């Protein structure tokens, strides 16, 4: 049955290729310089160290939110609250970064931990609503994104705002809390190692721990998990709490590594992008960093294209949409898959 895995990979590649092709057609229709536009889109991220750095920097938060979403998806919980968890984690880490005096090695750890706890709290609410009262986590987690966006904005604007700055930004984070950017001229920071740890943790948790096993079985077949003696109520809750921890730490990492001051005025969108990453990686934690890099590549390329040519960065959403559509469409290339299955089955008879 190895061929089925090959099929899945090929199918994803075909989907990506078709999406790119469509993107090119759209570009061709709207642009006066379609060739240049697409060239800068495809090769732009590799034309300077700084640009390549942008790609890696963008992949770090996507890895965290991708992991968070895939964890919830593996438990068959359609929790799309990673956005709010990420945002609130960043808010909490900002507050720790501004207010807590701590030595350089401890400060980031503390800020990350508090960010994780904040994310966990945001994740816990839809989890417990679902487990106790059967409230759809899709609705509650989606709405909570906006609730925690407002809560975060309130905290920053009313308590930690830098009134001397010309814009709506927080006070600067103490330098002790920063995650060092160690590869100038890029802004690649120590958060990349935190991301790698998160991937390893998520993988071990899901595939090597008893709790991850219970989580996956609950996701595969809830009545079966119940019948087997798995406490599915608690599984549903903790799957979303841990998913919140990962997203929250992601938000904290982004704040401590890149921004050093809270300056978002809207939801940054990493949580929603995490859904795309999770879908591309088929919820496999080991595939998440690759999917995150790929999405970051598209985004970075689109940015460069927008800056250097007459095509706007939004063109990338067309490509993304077509890609997700084709990857998730079960029937896409199903006939071909069926022929493979038939051939294999006949050989093995």
């Amino acid at each position, binding site marked *: 049955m190895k061929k089925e895995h090959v099929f899945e990979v090929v199918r994803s590649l075909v989907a990506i290729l078709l999406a790119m092709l469509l993107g090119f057609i759209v570009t061709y229709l709207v642009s006066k310089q379609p060739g240049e536009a697409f060239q800068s889109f495809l090769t732009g991220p590799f034309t300077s160290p700084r640009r390549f750095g942008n790609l890696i920097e963008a992949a770090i938060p996507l890895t965290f939110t991708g992991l968070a979403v895939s964890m919830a998806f593996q438990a068959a919980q359609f929790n799309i609250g990673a956005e709010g968890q990420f945002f609130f984690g960043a808010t909490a880490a900002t507050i720790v970064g501004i207010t807590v005096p701590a030595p350089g090695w401890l400060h980031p750890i503390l800020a990350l931990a508090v960010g994780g706890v904040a994310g966990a709290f945001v994740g816990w609410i839809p989890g417990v609503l679902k487990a106790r009262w059967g409230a759809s986590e899709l609705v509650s987690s989606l709405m909570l994104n906006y609730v925690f966006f407002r809560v975060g904005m309130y905290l920053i604007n009313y308590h930690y705002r830098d009134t001397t700055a010309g814009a709506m930004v927080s006070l600067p984070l103490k330098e002790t809390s920063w995650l060092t950017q160690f590869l100038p001229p890029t802004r690649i920071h120590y958060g990349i190692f935190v991301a790698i740890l998160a991937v390893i943790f998520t993988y*071990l948790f899901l595939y090597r721990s008893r709790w991850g096993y219970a989580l996956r*079985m609950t996701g595969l077949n809830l009545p079966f998990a119940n019948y087997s003696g798995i406490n599915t109520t608690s599984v549903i809750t903790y799957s979303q709490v841990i998913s919140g921890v990962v997203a929250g730490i992601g938000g904290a990492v982004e704040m401590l590594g890149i921004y050093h001051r809270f300056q978002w005025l809207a939801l940054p969108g990493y949580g929603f992008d995490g859904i795309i990453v999770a879908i591309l990686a088929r919820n496999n934690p080991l595939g998440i960093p690759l999917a995150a890099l790929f999405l970051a590549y598209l985004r970075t390329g689109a940015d460069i294209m927008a800056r250097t040519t007459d095509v706007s960065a939004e063109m990338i959403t067309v490509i993304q949409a077509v890609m997700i559509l084709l990857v998730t469409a079960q029937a896409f290339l199903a006939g071909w898959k069926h022929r493979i*299955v038939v051939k294999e089955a006949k050989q093995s008879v």
Partner: protein
Amino acid sequence: MDVLLEMKGIEKVYPNGVVANQGVDFSVAPGEIHALVGENGAGKTTLMKILFGLEQPEGGTITYKGKPLHIASPHVAIANGIGMVHQHFMLVPSLSIAENVVLGLEPKRGLSFDWKTAVSQTEELAARYNLPVNPTARVQDIPVGMRQKVKILKALMRGAELLVLDEPTAVLTPQETTELFAALKKLKSQGHTIIFISHKLREVKEISDRVTVMRAGRLIGVTDTATATERDISRMMVGRDVVLHVDKPPTTPGDAVLRVEGVRYVADTGKEVVKGVSFEVRAGEVLGIAGVEGNGQRELVEILTGLRKPSAGRVIAAGKNVTGKDCRAVRQAGVGHIPEDRMTHGVAGLGTIEENLIADRYDSKALNPRFLLSLKSVSELGKKLVKEFDIRTQSPKTPVKMLSGGNIQKVVVAREFSANPKLIVANQPTRGVDVGATEFIHKKLLENCAEGAGVLLISADLNEVMSLSHRLAVMYGGEIVAVFPNADEVTEEELGLYMLGVKRMKLAAGSEAS
């Protein structure tokens, strides 16, 4: 001989890689009752689904009334006079019989549904084919045997000349079966052709003119029913001689491992579906509960195993009061459960065999020597159980979904039996399971019983409950209506009378079946 339908070289491979039909040739003469027999998984239902347009074959041709026919969907089949009565009830329970029969062909008066015409059409049809039903009764209120008739009427309403019946007797009592057969013979005398899928050979002998036997997706042979014995047919089905009788060891029952006291259950609809059931199962015995499905057995089993909470009464399993406790507590008390619907409760289809085998012990010390799950221990356990329970697979890491029904059931049985339960609750343990696996599961069940486990066996298959049980009880309308201390002294016909509610024993309250 005339040929009404000819299917030639039919090939079908399912998306999961299961080869269901391999070059199957099948033909039916007009006006005959043709039995299609074979073990579960032999490909009978697939072949008929292709005929009815529910599945598309990878190869082969269909000739109907002398012309080639491409059956792209059930609409094409129905338009050509082919009707199918499915194994599972494809009726709308909340609608009346008449509404079900005319569904999709509703007589109209202006824009509204013409209820009177629907009733009269149904009555007329019922009279013509001698399938008496009450057109105004709701489907949810009528017994299973009646529903079977409604489904046949529904197919006839659509002008079916060739009727396919997929295991129509699986859920019927002997009496209902007799009645159904009379109706089928009448249909035949009126010129209809019937394909009758079954694996009950006695019924095949009784009703059919010719038999086609399938095994493992292939055609094995066609024979006139009159010239073949049951033994001949069963040998063709299985490929070897089958022991149709199980030798159950005599028993000296020990202490009660299950005490059920006055258990009641009121469904969400307000209907009381379990009405004060009491009985005991002792160590080392098999207590069989016979009954037509839907008489409260499912709810009772779910209450005993922790999937459902009773409205009243007590359940004592292996000395522990587990009334209203969850599955985990019931399992810890020492109860194993073979659930009725294995794909819903028994396994996670997308999970591997290994993963399914450890579901009840994934958090045990043995599998978690340190902080993480020991993949080595898991894989050793998987290998051991696959071997011990003869699960036919390339690897214990194969997803369960890829296995045949019988092997999936062996996965369930392996998990439940290897936990050394003191009480085994087996609900329809061999439904949809091939003869080989059935023999194996029966053997294991009796082995566990001989080693001191108590077994509660619930089955709609009379043959199964009668041959395995030491004691027998019959459930009807949510109550235990009969208890036979010695299962060997009961006849099928007598059981059938209790199952239909025609007869009931006077049982002292609280001491039923104990």
